[in-house]
């Protein structure tokens, strides 16, 4: 364990997954702090004391004017340089759902050619026309440099969003794919590509993209919620699987929840 890994989980202004995100990091062995955006901006809290920065889920500023847009403006206007320095220093940044939306609006993702200011991809309204809560199957690109997904090839997580459709123009997409910056893709239950088919691909994301990283693999954004799978009973099938396991003569010892792997990878990166 690496008890001295400090994680800053942002709160305030309508963010809402901070408690379970912090909890997931503490299960992964880190020391998380829930920090209000304003405490970071006014210097009450100093980013230098942290190794991992999490932009978590929620509805920052109500998600009016595009999900994550105003949060990105507030961060960029007030502590843009601090963020860039944090990245330069080799630390990790994670953006989950609203956080992912914020990272792409900040330009921290995709971060081509170490340009962490340009907005070149977007997360826009789901093609299905509505907010949707469902569990998805995710195929993980093992060639990706992403720190968070090392050693995992598939994953089940819930999505809960109205603006999760990943969109970029064809050349940006090609660039992402060639760089192996596409980390997670929506898949069928057999882990075949979802092929844009609803509901396996719940939002119409191009190339079924659910998560990307920057070229270094240290900045990672995803629409699904790994912090919502930190306990075995978070999974929708656990009661079935438990009964079936018992019948097959196994005592049911709950597997560690798969969502935690992402947090453990982040923490182990520093050990």
């Amino acid at each position, binding site marked *: 364990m690496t008890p001295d890994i400090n994680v800053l989980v942002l709160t305030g202004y309508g963010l809402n997954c901070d408690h379970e995100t912090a909890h997931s990091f503490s299960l992964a062995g880190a020391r998380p702090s829930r920090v209000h955006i304003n405490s970071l901006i006014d210097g009450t809290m100093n980013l230098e004391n942290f190794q991992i920065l999490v932009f978590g889920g929620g509805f920052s500023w109500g998600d009016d004017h595009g999900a994550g847009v105003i949060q990105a403006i507030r961060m960029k206007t007030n502590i843009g340089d601090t963020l860039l320095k944090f990245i330069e220093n080799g630390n990790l940044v994670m953006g989950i759902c609203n956080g992912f939306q914020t990272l792409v609006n900040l330009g921290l993702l995709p971060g081509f050619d170490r340009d962490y200011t340009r907005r070149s991809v977007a997360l826009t309204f789901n093609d299905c026309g509505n907010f*949707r809560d469902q569990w998805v199957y995710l195929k993980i690109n093992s060639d990706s440099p992403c720190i968070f997904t090392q050693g995992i090839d598939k994953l089940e997580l819930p999505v809960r969003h109205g603006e999760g459709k990943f969109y970029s123009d064809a050349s940006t997409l090609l660039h992402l794919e060639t760089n192996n910056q596409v980390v997670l893709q929506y898949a069928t239950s057999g882990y075949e590509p979802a092929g844009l088919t609803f509901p396996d691909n719940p939002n119409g994301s191009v190339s079924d993209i659910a998560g990307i990283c920057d070229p270094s693999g240290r900045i990672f954004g995803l629409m699904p919620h790994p912090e919502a799978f930190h306990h*075995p009973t978070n999974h929708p099938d656990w009661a079935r699987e438990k009964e079936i396991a018992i019948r097959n003569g196994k005592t049911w010892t709950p597997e560690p929840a798969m969502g935690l792997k992402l947090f453990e990878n982040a923490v182990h990166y520093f050990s």
Partner: protein
Amino acid sequence: MPYRLEITLKPGLTDAEGGQIARKADHYLGLALESVRTIHVVTIDADLSEDQLKKIQTGIFTNPVTQISSFDPLPSEFDWSIWVGFRPGVRDNPGATAVEALEDLLGLKLGREEAVYTSRRYCIRAPGLAVDDADKIAGELLANNIIQQWRVISKKEWDPETGIGFIIPKVRLEHTPTVSTLPIGTDKALKKVSDERNLALNPNDIPTIRSYFLKKDVLTARNEVGLTEPTDIELEYISQARSDHCNHNTFNGLFHYTDLSTGKTEKVDNLFKTCIQSPTLALKEKKSWVISVLWDNAGVGRFDEDHYYVITGETHNSPSNMEAYGGAITGIVGVYRDPLGTGKGSKLLMGSYGYCVGHRDYKGDLKPHLHPRRLLDGVIEGVKDGGNKSGIPTSFGQVLFHPGYMGKCLVFVTAIGLMPARVQGAPSEIKTTTPGDLIIMCGGRVGKDGIHGVTASSESFSSHTPAGHVQIGDPYTQKKMHDFLLEVRDQGLIRFLTDNGGGGLSSSVGESAEFSNGCEVTLEKVPIKYDGLDQWEIWVSESQERMTVAIAPEHLDLFMALSKKHAVESTVIGRYTDSGKLHITYNGNTCAYIDLDLMASGFPQWEFQAEWQPPENRGLFEPVIGKPKECTPLLLDILSRPNICSKEWIARQYDHEVQGTSAVKPFIGKERDVNSDAAVIRPVLSSEKGLAFAQSLLPAYSAIDAYHMTACTIDEAVRRLIAIGADPSQIGGVDNFCWPDIQFHPEKNPDGKFKAAQLVRSCKALKEMCMAYEIPLLSGKDSMYVDGHLAGRYGETRKISALETLQFSATSLVDNVATCVTMDAKMAGDLVYVLGLTRNELGGSEYYEQLGFTGCNVPKVSPGPFKRLYRALNNAIADGLVASAHGIFRGGLGVHLAMVAMGGNLGMTIDLQNIPSDQPLRADTLLFSESAGRFIITIDPKKKNAFQKLFKDLPWGCMGTITETPYLNINDTDGSLMISASIQDLKSAWKTPFGDLI
């Protein structure tokens, strides 16, 4: 000068919103539209330079990857362009966040007169679409005239340079705030004032109010502060406090109950005291887990040694009926302030919903303000935005269709919170105000919105109901306030906390001042949205997202520093005293001076005549039905009935997993598409302990007898918890009554006496069930006047009253969530049991409804024997003997066998002859009777003996087995095959009715 920025998606990108509109135009209005593109309009009414405008255009309002924008009208191909914007004074949430973003980016503060407004312009391509149809799309799909305004512009009329022009929905009141003195010379004069000012004072209250103001010592005291006759603000305060909504005059009333069949009469003095308070207090004595009930904004039960859970349920019927989205979002966001404002404050854990509306495909003559389909769409969306944006999982819900809800819909919203057992060493559930404490208002500002909401919901809906009370909740502002108040609580700064809901400051300050016995409010300090509000309006406005907090003066600096950190507006508006008076001043002049104890004494009790006639004397009878021969299509048709079929599209829009607590989700089973009996969450992330929650609604039985409706509703909620594996000894309840008007009037309410009798019977059943099942009522509310006067085909109006409705919510605890059992069949070869007796109880059933009957034999609850069965099942689940457990609810055994099979995607073979019944019953009765107290259980055959042993002397039967072949096969009592349907066909029947909705 104003600037107007138009923003739209780049050509070629899917416009999902436009697509939805085109689909609805087709499905709802039968209008074929080629395409709809949405343009977002941001109108900036502020002095900004060209550079600044450019900066916000690219920095905030235009996504470079997906959008284009222009300060000139965007060129777009259309046949009709429809602009939709808010009316002045309606809450524009995106407008408010635009100001925040703009100020941040430009590093400036907008002036008092400056603002940003958002609106939309839809570009519709539909060659040949008539102007009337375009208008219809505007008025019936895109906008609601209560909160919005619109313009329909044809291609020909469109001026590409001016576009829609500049429409600035700014509130200009041009009014100097004035306190008026109102004449109370005679009862008639006060009645006139009440009518003119929409005070809705009860005529019986008028003499009491007058005699108070005419009392000599009162007059003398008033003269000393410069007052004579009552002021408008004082009468408004009394009106709010005395409204049925706040004061529960109906439940506190005196009922003269007569059973016309026996001639027996009975006086029931105060339904609340006899049927709700007394059983709950008796049970509180017995159950140490009941922490705080019957006085605060919500009830409190112990979750574990260090945590309490906090629960309440509300309705928001009248506002939702007029503006479905606004009413529902205000309802859910509003009910979340109740646990937040309970004790010293709790964190919100989960919410749930219950919607009762007219049929979605209603095609009759009645013209409700909103068609049930549109109303339901709006309500669903309101709770979606309100719940999701609050970061609170919406984990359970129900929808019920019945023509009786055309007059007024029901929107139930329930909230659960969690608080630490102690805050800085002090009990968290205890709060009080003491003289000298500061009165602080936190959160939103005060405007004209919500004025007279409380009194309007205490009346039935008519064309004269003021529209001004419709609001749009703002979950964003409230979430900030929620986070702020919890931090303030944890620092030990909160002495008293309550929300500003119905009645606004009038209720919150008035009620909190009763603890210290007095207060002084400096009304001019209250932050307002715009100038020109009268003092009484500030006092009673129900502008949302506000809490009233009492703190010690020495904590003010720290409190304000935290308020600033969380970007929440907080203002000291007065202080608590022990003067016995509610004393309000405005710029130093007294405008209200009333004895606080006025409300506690002297008002006459409401009285009701209640006359009961048993169903058989009302012409109800058991229909004569020959045994059906085609039972497979019958079962499939019942599965497709609107109140049985899948409504997955609703719950999928609701985030039911945020906070990471979800342990049993709304959807379970092999394909995660069948409804679970209850929701289970794990509120403390570091603990394995769970909180189970379920609700039920069975108003159909009220057509026969509201006593049995109530008993069955409570029994269903209990069984839902038992089936999931929750503890039967720690069940808490929340009652939400929604009743039509019960005050008899020979012309206006000729059946009032019967409805009053139904209420008395319902309350008696509530008491008996709660005592029998040992359920303390942690919280509850009543909403009367569920009636509406709808225009008919010939210009007449018709009064439509809802069925007498009770929503019952139940909570209990689970020691370890991993012991919970879900309802889906798990393994082929498992044995299928029925627990409980089936009786000839088809009265009010879905089966009878399908065939057009009501019947008489309504299901009855026998809590004594039922309880023994529930205990035994609880033990079986605890011993790990049960593979799946599911209550038999609406639709009966046939429907719920199908649910268990569909859940497992497995087949089932069932023999009806093995079903225990009180007398030999025909197959259709066995399959569709809705007898209470029953379950379907599947178990591992190896556990057969151990399982059966637990149910010795209790009614049970082994009905059959789970099969790999995915067919539900049911054999008649003579052994012949009567139903054979593939799981796929069952699912298709159950999922198709609303299957194309997302």
